[in-house]
């Protein structure tokens, strides 16, 4: 059975899984931005916390994803079987690139620009929102891009703990040794990653002030 055949016969299910996959990625990346950007900004204000926080985010990144999903299952509140646990794990993975790039984007603003802003009487909040975040936006977006692309891939493994998504086909295909089935899950996931990469890449170049 070829791929197109499979898709036309199972179009409803395919769309459902694509939807689930997008949901996992969007929610987790969104949450990682909400947590990661303020955290990254905080690190520029409290440089002493930089090592421990980035170190911890690094540790999450190095845990194999399947193992992380497994570790989370027995935990109360955030654990269990299903999408919630998967989202928690995906957030932990997405955090590092977003926190690190936010820190670097904000800290990388030309010190002369920062000094001029402070010297002219901008408050720290004004400096952050009018100068540092806009100037660091391209770098922050690059972190979001990496996080999104990684999430699309990692989310396929979420199927292992019953969170759904395109990994369902991949795991099923591996179990029954069916290449078409594996491809049916892998191909849309790959396209999704490429699309996210392309779109966010365009946005990133649009905001790369420093390159000018």
């Amino acid at each position, binding site marked *: 059975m070829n791929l197109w055949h499979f898709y036309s016969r199972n179009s409803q299910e395919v769309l459902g899984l694509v939807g689930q996959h997008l949901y996992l990625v969007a929610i987790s990346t969104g949450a990682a931005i909400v947590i990661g950007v303020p955290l990254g900004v905080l690190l520029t204000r409290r440089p002493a916390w930089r090592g421990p926080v980035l170190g911890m985010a690094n540790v999450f990144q190095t845990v194999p994803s399947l193992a992380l999903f497994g570790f989370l299952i027995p935990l109360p509140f955030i654990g269990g079987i299903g999408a919630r646990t998967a989202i928690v794990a995906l957030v932990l993975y997405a955090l590092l690139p977003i926190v690190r790039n936010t820190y670097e984007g904000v800290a990388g603003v030309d010190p002369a620009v920062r000094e001029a802003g*402070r*010297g*002219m009487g*901008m408050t720290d909040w004004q400096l952050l929102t009018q100068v540092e975040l806009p100037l660091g936006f391209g770098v922050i977006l690059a972190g979001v891009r990496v996080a999104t692309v990684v999430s699309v891939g990692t989310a396929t493994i979420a199927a292992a703990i019953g969170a759904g998504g395109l990994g369902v086909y991949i795991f099923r295909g591996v179990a029954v040794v069916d290449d078409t089935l594996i491809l049916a899950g892998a191909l849309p996931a790959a396209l999704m990653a490429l699309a996210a990469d392309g779109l966010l890449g365009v946005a990133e170049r649009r905001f790369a002030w420093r390159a000018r």
Partner: protein
Amino acid sequence: MTKPLEVEGLGYDLPGRGKGERRKSRSLVRDVSFTVGAGETLVLLGRSGSGKTTTLKLINRLLEPTSGEVRVAGERAADLPVTRLRRRIGYVIQEVGLFPHFTVERNVGLVPRLEAWPPARIATRVRELLALVGLDPDTFAGRYPHELSGGQRQRVGVARALAADPPLLLLDEPFGALDPITRVELQREFAALEGRLGKGMVFVTHDVREGLLLGSRIGLMLQGRLTFLGTPDEFRRSDNPECRAFMAAA
């Protein structure tokens, strides 16, 4: 009439890094006193590390003085909220520090916008200032900093510092990074501008010729202290060894 700037016994100690009693603080600025009247430019001259830039930053509290007092237009700087204080003091630095994502117009209008001036008044003020620093408003208002030459950027920097009409201007080697020809051009224009503006200015430089050209008085700094304070003529004639060292380099 209150003076734009009065500085009395200003000092700044860097806390030591050691532990316990062995911990020694290092003095970057010690017992510096001077006043600057309206229309007057005090040039702070000195070698690198003599404390002139530190003194400047103590005035607008980018560094907090550890001793002494600063009064800006009669008000104690330490008593004012730091952002209010700074909006009353124009600040120009060597690297200019224009916001690269703002047009020239928005850069110059920064402090008025922070002070919530009505937009029409900001626009008028910006055009007035660009003309004052020798930039045609129609040509330059809409440009971004990366579309300007070094000299043009520093002109914008000066216009930005003047925007909210502060009584006092602090300039930290504003022409130091320019090529020699542009530098001389800007120095001449600045000399002409000083009298017209009627502001108090503190101008930091290590270039003695620039200091003699632009200063109504010269303050010479050595190891954190003001070792000489007087008019350019007095400076030329002084037998203070540091003055002589600078004159020899001129």
